[in-house]
């Protein structure tokens, strides 16, 4: 196995470490300490060492941020600007992100253990491109004029929903930041963002760039902190009109409860998944093996849509397994700054241990460990690409979201069986289908209860494709114009008509 944490890559850690410029909360256009004066440590998952101490916001800080956002919404310019002008400022924000791509990519790597090359080529440009997409949508928010059944004139106004709380995860800090913030900005909302405590660095940097771009004070506030304090304060705040969360299903439930118990704020949740990838007999085996492996190992398996359950039709099962194992063994784990490396460390110790414990479960429950199954190296949170075969539906590794490089592989006979097993989950985020047969593709697409279906591709995200879950994977969409509507509220306006020539 080429997976290793070599001395070479350790050396590059010293070379590439960016200076940390922003460690405080960003409230009302200023970087400030937390009221309590408390800080927390953000850790480099390659080494377990502290990168920086970050101001730890809690309820009082969230209150301040909400107050600033409330003021900016109720009395500020942002919702009162024409959409085209909000769009101009957002375009500028996107340009600034691109100009700082190198530094942002490095921050993302040291904070989250994500591949530097991928951050630079994908995550950071995607953050800019989401901003541009929604910048272009800011002047295209249409209400409707309605068809009345009597002499009335009726129309709808799409109004910004108000102050929004965004709670974002640590697996794609840049993309998630942009994905939440961009449509809300375009809609004319003001907001408080709480980045994950594991990865606060880029969000604070974005706050700085937002200010440079000309986003008025108070419109975008970033409060770094813990879920149990800052996150909880956001979800139960009486002055926040909507909260958008991406993270685990258990935390999503807490947020929904807090929202219900406080002011019944609108909630959108993008939660966990246990997404099936179904490979049919007619598939190109090489392509299918690549997709399956990429589907589970991309971003160290720390991705909510990971293809963590792979169902292979019996005709090509043996051949596919062989290829999968070969390819998994050739997969390079190591320092995420190394351009040859395909997989960095898990984000933190907690995740690392959780994944290893699931691997132990898998072994204990009787699944066949085809490859991997162990941590890698002495330092940091590296785990070998791991494949379990012959998994059963009732096994924990088949049911739970592991959020790591662990594939659960199973064999199926018929399309009906594949559909049934694929749907046998409380989640419904995504699914993949590999087949050349149009009818199979169409039937399975409609049968799987999940928010995204990828046919002969995987992770095919795009600005214009709405993304979100069925069942306990959440509700509400990110991406696309659907996401814009999460941050808009519909007002119907009605007035009588007299003597109208038509209705």
């Amino acid at each position: 196995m080429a997976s290793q944490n070599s001395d070479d890559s350790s050396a590059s850690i010293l070379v590439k470490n960016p200076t940390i410029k922003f460690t405080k909360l960003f409230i009302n256009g200023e970087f400030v300490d937390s009221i309590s004066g408390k800080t927390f440590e953000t850790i480099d998952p390659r080494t377990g060492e502290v990168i920086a101490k970050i101001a730890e916001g809690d309820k009082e800080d969230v209150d301040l941020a909400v107050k600033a956002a409330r003021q900016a919404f109720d009395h500020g310019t942002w919702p009162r600007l024409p959409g085209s002008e909000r769009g101009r400022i957002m375009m500028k924000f996107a340009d600034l992100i691109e100009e700082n791509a190198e530094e942002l990519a490095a921050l993302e790597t040291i904070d989250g253990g994500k591949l530097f090359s991928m951050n630079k080529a994908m995550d950071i440009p995607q953050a800019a491109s989401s901003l541009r997409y929604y910048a272009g949508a800011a002047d295209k928010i249409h209400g409707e004029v309605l068809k009345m059944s009597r002499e009335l004139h009726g129309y709808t106004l799409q109004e910004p929903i108000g102050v929004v709380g965004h709670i974002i995860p640590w697996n794609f800090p840049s993309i998630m930041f942009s994905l939440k913030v961009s449509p809300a900005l375009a809609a004319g909302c003001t907001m408080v963002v709480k980045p994950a405590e594991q990865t606060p660095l880029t969000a604070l940097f974005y706050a700085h760039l937002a200010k440079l771009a000309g986003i008025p004070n108070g419109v975008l506030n970033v409060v770094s902190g813990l879920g149990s304090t800052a996150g909880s304060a956001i979800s139960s705040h009486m002055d926040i009109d909507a909260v958008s969360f991406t993270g685990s299903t258990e935390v999503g439930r807490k947020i929904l409860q807090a929202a219900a118990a406080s002011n019944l704020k609108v909630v959108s949740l993008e939660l966990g998944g246990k997404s099936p990838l179904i490979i049919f007999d007619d598939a190109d085996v090489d392509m299918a093996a690549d997709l399956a492996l990429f589907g589970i190992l991309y971003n160290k398996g720390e991705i909510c849509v990971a293809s963590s359950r792979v169902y292979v039709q019996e005709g090509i099962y043996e051949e596919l397994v062989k290829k999968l194992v070969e390819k998994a063994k050739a997969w390079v784990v190591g320092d995420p700054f190394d351009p040859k490396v395909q997989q960095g460390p898990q984000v933190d110790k907690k995740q690392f241990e959780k994944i290893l414990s699931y691997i132990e479960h898998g072994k204990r429950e009787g699944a066949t460990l085809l490859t991997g199954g162990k941590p890698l190296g002495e330092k940091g949170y590296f785990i070998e690409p791991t494949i379990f075969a012959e998994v059963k539906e009732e096994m924990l590794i088949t049911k739970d979201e592991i959020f790591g490089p662990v594939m659960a592989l199973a064999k199926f006979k018929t399309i009906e069986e594949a559909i049934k097993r694929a749907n046998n989950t409380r989640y419904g985020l995504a699914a993949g289908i590999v087949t050349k047969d149009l009818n199979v593709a169409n039937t399975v697409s409609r049968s799987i209860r999940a928010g995204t279906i990828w046919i002969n591709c995987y992770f095919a995200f795009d600005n214009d494709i709405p993304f979100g879950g069925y069942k306990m994977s959440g509700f509400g969409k990110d991406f696309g114009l659907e996401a814009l509507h999460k941050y808009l509220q519909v007002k119907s306006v009605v007035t009588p008509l007299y003597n109208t020539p038509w209705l």
Partner: protein
Amino acid sequence: MASRRMCSLLSHSLTSPTSSAALFSRGNIGRNIASPSRGISKYSTAAAIENPVDPPFEVKHTQLLINGQFVDAASGKSFPTLDPRTGDVIAHVAEGDAEDINRAVAAARKAFDEGPWPKMTAYERQRIVLRFADLIEKHNDELAALETWDSGKPYEQSAKVEVPMLTRLMRYYAGWADKIHGLTVPADGPYHVQTLHEPIGVVGQVTPWNFPLLMFAWKVGPALACGNTIVLKTAEQTPLSALFAANLLHEAGLPPGVLNVISGFGPTAGAPLASHMDVDKFAFTGSTKTGQVVHELASRSNLKPVTMELGGKSPFIVCEDADIDKAVELAHSALFFNQGQCCCAGSRTFVHERVYDEFVEKSKARALKRAVGDPFLKGIEQGPQVSNAQFEKILEYIKSGIESGATLESGGERLGNKGYYIKPTVFSNVKDDMLIAKDEIFGPVQSIFKYKDLDEVIRRANATLFGLAAGVFTENLDTANTLTRALRVGTVWVNCYNIFDAAIPVGGYKMSGHGREKGIYSLENYLQVKAVVTPLKNPAWL
């Protein structure tokens, strides 16, 4: 926003006229325009008209733009484009005809059929159009000067309203490129149905001379956003600014052949484009008469669909509860804006009898105050008409108005002895059957009509072949709603006029045209809808 500025710029420059007729020496217009203390009184002195300011830029592009290259006409012919302030030649411009149209269509065809334009990602197309917008911003003053020089419109209007609006429109359309959605469609049986919104192909477009750059944006913007390729024929009176802008678009990264620009005349260049068998779609803005010819040519050739934005005789209705001073100002700008050369011009001012006399008196006073003169000078509200032909035509209509018994309140003749300037003209006591009440004059001639009640004004306002726009001036919500629905026009402005935001669709009822430009509606002009149907085996739901 920019169009709101259009109104505010007008009213602003109107409310602060200075009494002295400032004399502007020839030379640096930047200096003149930069001196806010100077102003122009009504009917700028003959001196200013007789000694026009030298535009501070040179004409750079006079050839045809085909397949990314500036080239001479195949015939080698050229035509002069004239300065309407003097009738002097600005430049000789390559004169395209059928052969050049063929070359341009072939280039556009290749660029469409082989790419890369329609095959590029929408994001890449968007970035090119956004870069173009940035470049326009950078060359704002040069483009504005070119526009004023060629068309005679006030430089302040070109520089502060129209060129910024061009960038605004291009950014608007850039934002559409990645949001063009087909639908998945319900079926009555086990079928999977979807619609693809595909680019329509090679588009022929003909723009008018009254807003050369804005019409460029209205035409080119949506066609590019949807992934089409284009052959654009500009008006022979104003070929310059489109060539300059198209060059910037190529600088921004537009692949060759995607936008071809042919200068030339309607019968020799416009007609072969409209009847070309390889052009998939045609869009035209201009007179109703030409629109009819274009429609015929399109149907006689390959039945290409045609979008037309044609003439108008738009009513501006002042109700009895109106604030008279505001109504007078708005009605004045509704008609006189851009020398009266607007298809949406409020050319029939209907005034309720209770406020009629006061309205006429004040409209006359306002027209007499209008600052007419060299459009390069600061504070000028009205420049010369675009060409001698227009100038003569307008004077003919004025003559007809006088002969048919309308009361001439102001103007009625040319201004100065040089160029195509006409004094702001107001007729009162205009009757519905007079020629000036029926025809589109396209000049600075306001016609004021008296009416008694709402039903009457609705009937009279609708008694026209046209249906482009209308203005309604009232504080009464019910009156506003009644008029809004009763008027058979494509745009109703209530207590405002000439608001032309990027997202607001514009187009005509009746003989004012087909289709809508701007807004989401404009995309339909440049998209084909393809329905895709396939059976479903054992679907989980329908």
